[in-house]
Structures are given as structure tokens and as C-alpha cells.
């Protein structure tokens, strides 16, 4: 979009100020994230750019915070917890979210909009409110599980957080899968049935491959939601379920160690990788949809 020769002064002014505004928005969004990356290579134990770093002296940089992260037991336990809780919560969210989206996409289901609104509410209700509700709900459920089935407190703790995180992730899956289903041609399932495929085969061979991009992007959002989540974990988890965000939160409060910055940098890298995957999947989905006849 270049400026045409007949542009008036007002249009010229707007043309350049539009660019400046966009640049500012971009800077405000990105700089707070970028600034932690060089800081995480800080050779000192403080949150500041030292004179050595500003001179780009190799002496001012080190990997010691990363080393700290990978050797410290507390951080490693948190990392392990995060990698236990997030994937299981994601799988649950994907399974239930996909089923809900498929069910709600069928026109004969009564009260579809109301049900949809309820299922999506965890995304809209302020997290602190959901967390408060979850605290009471899951402590009652935890007590029940411990008393009735004699499960260990530790195990029940994981179940509680996984279920809570799955509930937070389901709305993302529902939204992405519903969006994919809008373009889904239902005569394909009829065609499959007509050719002798039972509903289960039809689902896995025909419907699933076509809505897979939506399912995977929903899954990624659900994963990030669980992986980044701190409020609910603090409310309903116990010390043995400490996750990475929780550890970072307490780290910030109790000991301001640049290890947090190293962890943050690692998380930023993971997020970028995941978002790239989402984008690639979206392109694949667009290609497939452009390919569908009619």
C-alpha cells in the first residue's frame, strides 16, 4: 500500500501516523518480552544490565542461570510437575472439547447456544473467580476421593489440578473445533455411511482428519493455558504440585534470582515454537478447505 500521487495532505499525515502507531503498538507488545532475553544471560545475580553487558563484553554474559535452572531440585520438580499436568490436562480438554464441539454443531441439539455459553464461560469469567469456585469444589471432591477410595493426598492433588486445567482449556478447543466444523461438508459423513462405514469409522477416517487442524490448535491453546497457569494452581494445589509458573511466582517474591529470566526465556522459545505450529496447521487447514469441492 503505497501513497497514491493524488493523496491530500490529510491522507499523507494519516499514512505516516498510521505507521508510527502500528510501530508503537508492536513495540509495547514485544519489548517487555524481548528485554528478558539478554538479561537472562547476565553474569551477575541482579536484574540489571551491567556496564559489561552494555559494552557487549563477553565477560558480562554467562549461562550460569540456565545451569542453575537445570541443576536446582526445586526448579526441576516444578518442570516435571508442569510436564505431567499440562499434557494430561490438554488430552482431556481436547477429547471433551472436540466431542462437545461436534455435538453442539448438530442442528437438532436443543439449547445449543446456552450450553455453548456455559462451556465457554471459564474463558470469560475472571480467573480469580473461577479459582475461588474451584477451590471449594475441588477441596470437597478431593476429600471425597481420599476418604472413599483411600487415594494418597499427593495423587488426588494432581487429579484436582489436571481436572481444573482441563476445564480451563476446553473453551479453546470448543472454539477452534467449532470454527473448523463450520466449513465441514456433512454430505461427506453421509457418503461414508453410504459406502458402508459405521459411525465410528466415519468419525476417525473422514471427520477427524478434516477437523484435525482445529483440534490441534485448540490443543496447543489448552496446553499453553495449563502450562502458564498460576492462580488456580496456587488455590487448589499443594506444595508437591508446584508448577513452573508457581515456582517463578514464589521465586519473584522471595528471592529475586535471574534464574527466573532464564526460565522465562525458555518458555518464550517454547511459546514461539507452539505458535509457529499453530500457524502452519492453519495454513494446511486452509489449503484442505480450498480443496474441498463446491
Amino acid at each position, binding site marked *: 500500500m503505497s501513497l497514491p500521487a493524488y493523496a491530500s495532505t490529510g491522507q499523507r499525515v494519516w499514512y505516516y501516523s498510521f505507521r508510527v502507531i502500528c510501530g508503537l503498538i508492536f513495540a509495547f507488545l514485544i519489548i517487555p518480552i524481548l528485554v528478558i532475553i539478554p538479561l537472562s544471560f547476565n553474569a551477575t545475580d541482579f536484574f540489571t544490565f551491567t556496564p559489561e553487558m552494555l559494552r557487549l563484553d563477553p565477560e558480562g554474559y554467562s549461562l550460569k542461570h540456565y545451569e542453575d535452572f537445570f541443576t536446582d531440585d526445586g526448579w526441576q520438580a516444578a518442570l516435571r510437575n508442569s510436564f505431567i499436568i499440562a499434557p494430561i490436562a490438554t488430552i482431556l480438554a481436547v477429547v471433551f472439547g472436540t466431542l462437545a464441539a461436534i455435538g453442539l454443531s448438530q442442528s437438532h441439539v436443543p439449547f445449543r447456544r446456552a450450553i455453548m455459553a456455559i462451556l465457554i464461560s471459564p474463558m470469560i469469567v475472571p480467573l480469580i473467580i473461577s479459582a475461588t469456585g474451584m477451590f471449594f469444589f475441588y477441596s470437597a471432591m478431593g476429600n471425597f476421593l481420599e476418604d472413599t477410595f483411600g487415594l494418597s493426598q499427593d495423587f488426588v492433588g494432581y487429579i484436582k489440578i489436571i481436572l481444573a486445567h482441563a476445564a480451563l482449556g476446553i473453551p479453546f478447543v470448543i472454539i477452534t473445533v467449532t470454527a473448523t466444523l463450520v466449513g465441514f461438508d456433512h454430505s461427506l459423513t453421509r457418503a461414508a*455411511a453410504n459406502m458402508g462405514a459405521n459411525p465410528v469409522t466415519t468419525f476417525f477416517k473422514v471427520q477427524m482428519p478434516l477437523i484435525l487442524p482445529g483440534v490441534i490448535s485448540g490443543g496447543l491453546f489448552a496446553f499453553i493455558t495449563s502450562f502458564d497457569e498460576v492462580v488456580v494452581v496456587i488455590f487448589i494445589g499443594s506444595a508437591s504440585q508446584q508448577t513452573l509458573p508457581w515456582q517463578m511466582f514464589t521465586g519473584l517474591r522471595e528471592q529475586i534470582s535471574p534464574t527466573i529470566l532464564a526460565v522465562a526465556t525458555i518458555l518464550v522459545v517454547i511459546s514461539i515454537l507452539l505458535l509457529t505450529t499453530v500457524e502452519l496447521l492453519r495454513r494446511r487447514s486452509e489449503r*484442505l478447505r480450498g480443496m474441498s469441492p463446491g
Partner: protein
Amino acid sequence: MTDCAVAHMNERDKRGRYLSDMTANDGFVTFDRVQKSYDGENLVVKDLNLSIGKGEFLTMLGPSGSGKTTCLMMLAGFESATHGEIKLDGVSINNIPPHKRGIGMVFQNYALFPHMTVAENLAFPLEVRKMGKDEREAKVKRALDMVQMGAFGGRRPAQLSGGQQQRIALARALVFDAELVLMDEPLGALDKQLREHMQFEIKHLHEQLGITVVYVTHDQGEALTMSDRVAVFNDGRIQQLAPPEDLYERPENSFVAQFIGENNTLGGRIEKIEGDVAEVRLHSGELISAFPVNVTQPGEETTISIRPERVEIDHTRLPADAHLIDAEVLEWIYMGDIFRTRLRVAGNDQFVIKSRNSGDQRKLKPGEKIKIGWAPMDARALDAS
């Protein structure tokens, strides 16, 4: 394909043609007093009785909303009949789910799986039948060759043109040797030339394979070209069920006469009926003779239906007893193979005649007064609706 299977197919072929020649039916597919309502109040299909013979090519023809597609969907199992029974080969299929009916179908938008190649699309019905890989590949190849698409097995549907996708959809409906194949306006999305070409191809495939075909369309030309019998649907009922020739030459009511082909109508009242001839007084005063179809009483209101190509300007070609009637030329159009003349006849200024471009025809000028006539047998006195 084994020799045995070939022999089996040939036998079916003969039997199919034999039966369709006789337009007899042993009731391979029967609808017995079938009704369908979506909302519990309005019947979309009202009391349908239809028996389709093995090897027959039956077309359900009708305007949109006439219930023809609903009938096809009930046969495929995607809709259930509100009342009545549908039988396939003597067995009631009301309670059999679509995937156990073993009926092939070509969908209006083809419904090819976009994430599979053409060969995978065709192999799908064979895979769900747990067929071995070698047999599967042989059948897919044979089906693709049948529709002249043998070289396209590795492509995806989106890389094919509309006509090619249509062929693949056809091959996919035939690949698993279904004895009954349903087609839901399969040629609707193609351009005219391709559509006409595919009509003949489908017709030939039907003759070769001896399968039973139930074809739904709103295009009467398609129905007349392809079918053994045509069921004309309107308002949830079959208006007439007859071979194409009967349908065009001998429509049984004014809906069928209007719907099939071009048709001139004149309103009048029956004066008297004597055997095969009815004297009709037109509303404009002229007296003509016509063939009574579904009128019985003198004094009854009637609509006379005359095909444009049966009206004669050349009086020497008319039988002696033909009435002549005054006409004024309003428009004369040269259409290449025929001339189309619009006349005002008995107050109707949409009266059209078609005359063959035979070399000795003269050009009629607007405003010219002529006399036209027709054989009494070609003027059909139908209900007045």
C-alpha cells in the same frame, strides 16, 4: 476380476435389460404407502406407492420441494419414513442403518473426501468391507477405467475439474458392486455440453452393468433421455409414472403436460364426449375437438394441451375431421433447426408453434392472419387446474 464374476455380471446385465424392456418389475425396490413429515403436520411425501424393477433406470422428476429428494434420502437411509414401509429385494429396510444397506450413491456436490487421493476415495468402501489389498487395487483400477479416469488415481479431488470429480463420484458409487445406485442430481453443477455427454455415459454404464438406478433430477430433458420410467413428483405425490415416451405424448394431467416439454394451453368447457373425441367450446367461443384424458362429464371445465410441434400451418397435412382455428402471428424466431412462431390463438397470446426448417417453409410476418389446426388426438383435454 475373476471369470466367475464376469459371468455373473453378464447374467445380471441380460436380466436387467429384459426386465426394463418389458417395464415389468419384480419389485426390487418398493415403497408401500410411505409418508414423510418433518414437522409432524405437513406431509412432504403423501402416500407414496412405487415399485422399481431390478435393472431398471427410474427417474424421480419434479420441481424443488416436490418430495423427490426426500424419497431418495429415505431409500438411502438418511431420513426415516414417518409411515409406511420401504423394501429392498423383498426385505424391509426401515430399521436398517444407512451403512448396512449396501446402496451406492452419487451426491449432488459429489462428496469426495478432500483429504484422500482419488484412488483412496475409491478404496474407502472396499477397505471398510475388509477387502484384501490386491483385490482392492484391481477393483479401483477397473472402476477408474470404467469412467476413463485411469490416469488420475494419485490426484486429489481439488486438482480435478467438475466433470472429472463427477466421474470419480460415479466410479466410487459403482466400485463396491452395489446392485442399487442412487443419484441425487449428479449433473446439476456441470455445463450443458458436459451434462449431455455424461447423461449418455451414465446410461451406457447402467446398460453395461445391469444395475438398478434411481435418479433424482429437476431437469426433464435429462429424465427423458436416460430413464426407463419417469415418476413425475409434485406436492408429495407421483403425478404420473410412465416411460418417457408416454409421459411426453400422453400426459395424464395438466401438471405433467405443463412440466414435461413445452405446451400450449387453451381453456374451455366440454360440450359432449363421444368415445375418444370430446367437443370443447373454448372460452373465446370456438368449437374444437380434443382427446378426453381425465375429463368425463359434459359441462366440465377443461384445459386443452397441445404440443407446439403438433400444430400445423399446412392444412394439407391435417386429417379431414380437424378443426381449423384463426391465429395472428405475433413473433417469428429463427432458431436454426426449427422456426418458433408465437401466435395469438383464442385470446391466448403465448401460443407457440415449432416448425422444422425443411426448406419449403416460408417466413411468417408479425400481424399476418393464418389458420392453424391439429389432429384431434393431439389436443388433450385435461383437468382445468
